[in-house]
């Protein structure tokens, strides 16, 4: 397939792997965090660990939208569907995120709640138009990539005068999460970041410059194809070897320094920063998420239904928090692969194939048995 096969070429991968092996100093360790779940998935799906020398350690980051969604947020959505009788629309994996009382949106649906899986915000608007007598709430989740489509939907809803459409806004910000990871005292030891792909098409490469400058961490923005990841690893190793900490862009076919200005303007018009937002794993992070501006408050489900956010602690045995911070690997969690599996996820990292636990379970768990 054109524009895809080129980035999955086995021969090229061998070349880059040989290059990495040659550049990587076996005497040291390169601790590289891939921030995005998209990268985590590509690394696991293509078995990239087999192509890397032992000195390169990949640490999975928190960039998986459903993984960072705390229990309390899913509870809030379930309450809207069950207590307020709304049609609750959301993206696929969100349906399986564990909530309180052994519930998920999927189980709430089975118990009679009207929960619908949608592919885009446009589907949610269509449902609102098709059921004018019902309230329709879109559970909006995701990083900067999914925010512009939500902003478009809000503007369309306003233009169409839709009175039965609102969103439960859980849009979060990548740079804030990176700050949170680096700012933790005694936190994870990192030598560099594989920077987000799709997020960076929107926000550009400029927002990462602070991490290179203030934290001396090199960042290489990379596409989600396996060769992108390999190339980014090589670029990071070069920077680390040379003692540089810069933002480099491997994903030049889609990312510029300034990003998508039009999308940024749209998001700024519709959303503003929340003072603070609770993330699963990272806890409360200041200025790390978005809410609707006052002008659009009629579309804010939290206000419309007075839906309060009640924080709920994670399952005691679940290590999702440490895994999301990069402090533990999935296999270090006691319930990984036993109580917690993709069929019955206890923690959110086991839900989406972009989650560190699900990716390792589904693609890589043979490694423990062969070691």
């Amino acid at each position, binding site marked *: 397939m054109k524009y895809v096969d080129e980035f*999955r070429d086995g021969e090229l991968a061998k070349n880059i792997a040989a290059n990495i092996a040659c550049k990587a100093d076996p005497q040291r360790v390169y601790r590289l965090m891939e921030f995005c779940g998209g990268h985590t998935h590509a690394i696991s799906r293509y*078995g990239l660990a*087999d192509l890397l020398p032992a000195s390169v350690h990949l640490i999975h980051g928190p960039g998986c939208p459903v993984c960072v969604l705390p229990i309390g947020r899913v509870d809030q959505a379930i309450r809207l569907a069950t207590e307020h009788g709304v049609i609750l629309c959301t993206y696929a994996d969100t349906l399986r995120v564990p909530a309180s009382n052994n519930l998920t949106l999927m189980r709430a649906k089975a118990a009679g709640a009207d929960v619908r899986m949608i592919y885009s915000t446009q589907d949610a608007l269509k449902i609102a138009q098709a059921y004018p007598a019902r309230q329709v709430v879109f559970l909006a989740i995701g990083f900067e990539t999914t925010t512009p489509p939500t902003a478009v939907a809000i503007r369309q809803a306003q233009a169409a005068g839709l009175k039965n459409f609102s969103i439960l806004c859980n849009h979060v910000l990548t740079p804030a999460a990176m700050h949170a990871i680096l700012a933790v005292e005694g936190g994870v030891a990192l030598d560099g970041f594989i920077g987000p792909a799709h997020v960076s098409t929107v926000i550009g490469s400029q927002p990462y410059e602070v991490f290179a400058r203030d934290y001396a961490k090199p960042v290489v923005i990379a596409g989600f194809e396996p060769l992108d990841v390999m190339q980014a690893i090589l670029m990071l190793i070069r920077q680390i070897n040379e003692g540089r900490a810069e933002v480099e862009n491997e994903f030049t076919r889609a990312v510029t320094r300034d990003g998508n200005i039009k999308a940024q303007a749209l998001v700024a018009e519709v959303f503003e920063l929340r003072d603070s937002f609770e993330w699963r794993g990272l806890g409360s992070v200041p200025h790390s998420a978005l809410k609707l501006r006052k002008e659009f408050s009629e579309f804010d489900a939290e206000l419309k239904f007075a839906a309060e956010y009640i924080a709920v602690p994670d399952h005691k045995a679940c290590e999702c928090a440490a895994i999301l911070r990069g402090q533990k690997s999935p296999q270090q969690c006691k319930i990984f692969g036993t109580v917690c599996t993709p069929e019955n996820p206890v923690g959110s990292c086991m839900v989406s194939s972009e989650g560190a636990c699900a990716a390792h379970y589904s*693609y890589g768990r043979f490694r423990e048995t062969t070691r």
Partner: protein
Amino acid sequence: MSKPSYTRPLDMKNGRVEMSYGSGGRAMAQLIAELFAKAFDNPYLAQGNDGALLPSATGRLVMSTDSHVVSPLFFAGGDIGCLSVHGTINDVAMMGATPLYLSAAFILEEGFPLTDLKRIVVSMAQAAREAGVPIVTGDTKVVEQGKGDGVFITTTGVGVVRDGITLSGDLAQPGDKILLSGAIGDHGMAVLSQREGLSFDAPIISDTAALHGLVAAMLDSGACLRVLRDPTRGGLATTLNEIASQSGVGMLLQEAAIAVNQPVEAACEFLGLDPLYVANEGKLVAICAAEDAAHLLKVMRAHPLAADAAIIGEVREDAHGFVQMTTKLGGRRIVDWLAGEQLPRIC
């Protein structure tokens, strides 16, 4: 003098399924006579009894049943009618059997257009005729509007296995080769792209087909076949995991050997799906002794339904029963069971 009896024929053009069509009365008899019996026409069905009286058969019997609830009912390359015939014929064939007879049970939703029902029934009849497997008995029920999804069809097939043939999911042995009859994911993506209104330069066409002819050629090849299975729901990945688990073995696949047609690959890419988990309705997986694999492959490729057959991997000893795959990039990964639900209803 009494008038000659006359029944107005069913309005196949504008008529709709009514509750009375499932009531056992005259309306049902009329639907059976004018639609089902006419289309499926064969002497066993024509007996008109509660069951079909069939001649005695030689060999061990195989029986399999399959319910079909696909949505949409009509898709590129087929419809629920031919799918319900192919699906059950294939299940019987995967046992190494020659399929002989089919039954068909319909659950119709009140209000379903008769013109669509006729299209489905005609498609079933044609598929059964082409396969040489008659539909010898059937049943029709009607549910109230809103309690079905147009039409659900359950077919049951009976076949015979000749002596000396034993195929079973628990017979795979370390060292055996794994063969696949062609490109994967066509059916699932044909249905899904239609449902989602996705269109591609080259449309995706379901691979729905009856595989018993191919199976007969494979059995006649003399190759030491151990397992045959059609990778329908859950796709190739799920089928191989089932076999690995039944046989207590592991597998190692080569991603580069597994063909995926380009539009299917593109559609999967677009929707974030893995073709390994997408349903097929005209493909089979065969596991055979290593020494016979090349010969079997040749025989398969000579058949029009397996022209793109390939050896995709081998069975290995593995206490964990992992199905692993060497990726195109040269790394290794697990090809796991499908977790949760990848697709809405597709068969």
